[in-house]
């Protein structure tokens, strides 16, 4: 199994489900220049993040190059500790990755 680019942590806190994710991605804006060649490094960043709980979306995000490298996402939603959470990202090159975990699963 290929190594995931997503580290996902979920826990129940105060009646809500807290979701935290650290995603490995270069998030190139497309405006940076290569120091050696002087050419622009092509844009390569996540454009959409969808987080689903038991198949239903609880968060969708439209990202651009302004989000930093290896982005960290943190939010809560109203759910139960028996939920299964799935996070999927898609980037401007069409690549995507996803991870699925039960609440509290390491």
């Amino acid at each position, binding site marked *: 199994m290929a190594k995931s680019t997503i*580290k996902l*942590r979920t826990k129940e806190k105060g009646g809500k489900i807290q979701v*935290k994710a*650290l995603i*490995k991605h270069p998030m190139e804006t497309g405006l940076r220049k290569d120091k050696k060649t002087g050419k622009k490094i092509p844009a390569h960043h996540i454009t959409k993040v969808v987080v689903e709980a038991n198949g239903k979306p609880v968060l969708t995000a439209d990202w651009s190059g302004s989000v*930093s*490298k*290896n982005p*960290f996402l*943190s939010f809560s939603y109203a759910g139960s500790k028996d939920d299964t959470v799935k996070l999927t990202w898609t980037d401007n090159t069409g690549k995507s990755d996803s991870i699925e975990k039960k609440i509290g699963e390491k």
Partner: protein
Amino acid sequence: MKKLISSVTLLALSLTPFVAAQATPEDDLKALRAYFKKNMPNPDLSDYKNGIYAFNKDARAQWEEIEEFPPYEIDLDKGKELWEKKFKNGKSFADCFGSDLSKIRPKYPYHDEAKDTIVTLEGDINKCLTDNGEKPYKWKKGNIAALSAYIAKAAEGTKITTMPKTEKAIAWYNKGKNFFYAKRGQLNLSCADCHVYSASKWIRGDNLGPAVGHTTHFPVFRSKWGALGTLHRRYGGCNKNIRAKPFKAQSDEYKALEYFEAVMSNGLEINGPGARK
């Protein structure tokens, strides 16, 4: 008789050890700690490893949340990968450092009596690579920081025991001490100006961290860098900040400074890698 007495006295005087003008490292340590205890908001000595977060409660709350799921987790994975990867000749880092990861970081920095130099963790990482026919890493960031972070994490909680014992080691210590207290750069500041005399005070939007506890949490993930960096990377950056020409990473100057700073953090726990602004 008089001549005999005076010549004996002269002989006796010449035999008594010449007391060096500089205080011993142990004296310095006591003095510095006493200074901080007297002049600054007073956290527990064991909290000095957390730098400014020992004083600034608001920043500490935010920092603790970051450390719960820190940005350098990705680098720790990379560090593990590098540690386990075999060199072309079949050996690996464990052959240079031993397989008990928790015992490595506390050794450094140390004074090599035979070569009369200071040996740092990063120095030995690259020595291991070159000894085994591999290309050494760059000194300040990237793979060296990731591997150093992985090694530091394994020793979390171990106390720093760096203390020079021999004359040559003390000479290196004094070299670092003099660097620390000397003014430099266009802004004419010494390390001490900020990190001793102004520690815990505000500098624009940040607090100045105290020198005690400086080295415990390296390598450091600085939000400003968006990445991990080694201690010598920070030394260079700090020197640039006061508009002094930085020395090279792993130069004698920075190695001596690291040695001195480690002694000033003697007894504190290792807590690298750390997240900082």
